[in-house]
């Protein structure tokens, strides 16, 4: 294990208590809502915030704990912040060379290495520009080069893509993925965007209110969310209940038919596209039919995402045409149908 950290820190009303381990070459995503403590964790790892307790060990070197507190400038790390934060008074090349100069490299050598890195991140020939002359995506690439140029043992990424517009985010994400694959140290990516976590990370820990609530590979976490927050993020409706044969009795009392035998406390998860809506009770095969009420609707690409309230709170995606034809509006009473085979079920 390259990074081993147990971090306990109190920030206002937030009590952070999180353990993370990241191997060499591995990318760990810390996924969570705003105020969950992700940034506090990152600041502790970077040495910008002394933890109240716990330890941070990188490559066997103690950074925090056991009576040690290594100042941030003595840690072999690189950080990419949300807003790039390139020094506005330095050229792009000098920004990238900054970490080399502070660590004692000569001016010429630092310039050459910085130029190499600018080429690697696709900013060939832009070293002479001022940060203000770069686009958001270019600035974030330069920030990545600046963080990696010192060959850190630990790379910290703090919402590196969230300040970018949608199209730029797509390309920068793909490039970031390539650079992370080449990077030999440990990476911790802090994000509230599940797509970033799914696309970039080998493993995900979900942090809510300062605690790890779920950990696993991105696929596992996406398929089997354990909290409403994660379920909403990946677009699933999460229904906690108790299994009894091919039925899950929800904590609220309603019953959901499933395709396999289950028992004990379980989650039933339903994808929005597998929910069909009707104005009258549908006839035919579906075993799961519930009368619900439309609580809200938001356009979502070519579909409309409908939030349904009632005995089985669900999210349904319907096409814009269907939405109009059904004459749906907040408050409309609808019947929701889901095939039993479309309900994923797993132990709580």
């Amino acid at each position, binding site marked *: 294990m390259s990074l081993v950290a147990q971090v306990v820190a109190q920030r206002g009303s937030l009590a952070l208590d999180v353990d993370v381990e990241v191997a060499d070459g591995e990318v760990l995503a810390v996924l969570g809502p705003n105020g969950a403590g992700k940034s506090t964790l990152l600041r502790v790892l970077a040495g910008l915030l002394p933890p109240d307790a716990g330890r941070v060990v990188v490559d066997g070197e103690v950074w925090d704990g056991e009576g040690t507190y290594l100042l941030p400038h003595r840690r072999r790390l690189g950080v990419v912040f949300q807003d790039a934060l390139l020094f*506005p008074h*330095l050229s792009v090349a000098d920004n990238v060379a900054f970490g080399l100069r*502070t660590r004692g490299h000569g001016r010429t050598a630092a310039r050459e290495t910085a130029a190499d890195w600018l080429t690697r991140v696709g900013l060939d020939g832009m070293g002479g520009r001022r940060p203000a002359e770069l686009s958001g995506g270019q600035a974030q690439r330069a920030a990545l080069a600046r963080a990696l140029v010192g060959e850190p043992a630990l790379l910290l990424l703090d919402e590196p893509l969230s300040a970018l517009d949608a199209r730029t985010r797509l390309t920068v994400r793909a490039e970031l993925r390539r650079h992370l694959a080449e990077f030999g140290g440990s990476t911790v990516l802090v994000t509230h965007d599940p797509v970033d976590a799914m696309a970039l990370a080998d493993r995900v820990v979900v942090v809510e209110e300062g605690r790890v609530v779920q950990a696993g590979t991105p696929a596992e976490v996406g398929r089997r969310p354990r909290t409403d927050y994660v379920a909403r993020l990946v677009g699933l409706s999460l229904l906690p209940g108790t299994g009894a044969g091919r039925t899950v009795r929800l904590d609220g009392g309603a019953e959901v038919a499933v395709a396999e035998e289950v028992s004990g406390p379980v989650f039933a998860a339903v994808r929005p596209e597998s929910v069909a809506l009707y104005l009258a009770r549908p006839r035919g095969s579906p075993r799961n039919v519930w009368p619900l009420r439309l609580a809200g609707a938001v356009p979502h690409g070519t579909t409309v995402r409908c939030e349904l309230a009632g005995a089985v709170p669900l999210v349904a995606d319907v096409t814009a045409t269907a939405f109009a034809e059904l004459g749906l509006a907040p408050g409309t009473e609808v019947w929701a149908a889901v095939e039993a085979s479309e309900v994923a079920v797993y132990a709580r």
Partner: protein
Amino acid sequence: MRRPGTRVPAPLAIPAALAVAFLVLPLAGLLVRAPWSSVVEQLTAPGVGQALRLSLLSATAATAVSLLLGVPLAWVLARSRIRGRSVLRALVTVPLVLPPVVGGVALFLVLGRQGIVGSWLDATFGITIPFTTAAVVIAQTFVAMPFLVVSVEGALRAADARFEDVAATLGADRWTTFRRVTLPMVAPGVAAGAVLCWARALGEFGATITFAGNFPGTTQTMPTAVYLALQSEPEAAVVLSLVLLAVSLGTLLLLRDRWLGRVVP
């Protein structure tokens, strides 16, 4: 087209116009009554040149000392977490509101021959400070440095401290961070503070005349020269005042972007 309701109501307009007249008329009077025919002659009179040179030199020296000591002090006030910081801030800004003549008396009591530090300096090194050019610089620094400190502290507080975090993660200790990141980023604030400090030092009168006196060639600056001239040759006083006015206007011009209401986009 005028938008309705943009007229200034009379109860505000009339006092405002009076205020403008009150502030501008004396300066206009100075220009009107200036002995323009003999300006060159007055300016080249031996005493005037001396006073002007001493003023420029001492104000520049006071600004340099203020920068050397005041910028670090501003950093301590803005960035450090030492205890009693607010008390410290109050203490160092006292000279802003203190009557300068009181400052002069205070300096005299500390650095004068009988003063706490002054007697020691005299006994150990044979140095006496009062009524020397050094005393002029000290008096000006005492009065002007708080302007620089307040200005630079404001700039430091307005600067994005996250850049300092970035520098730390790139291996820069706090001193390197200050030199290579913080200082360049607040440079405009430091420059503005320095100009303000210099202008204040240049106009310093009360503390200077109390602590340094008014000896032509060694301690007579423009303001003290104006005071002396007004009693014997009023025309010279007017000309000297004109020079100080020109310098003040020049200072304003330098700072116009910062303080004359230019809206930053």
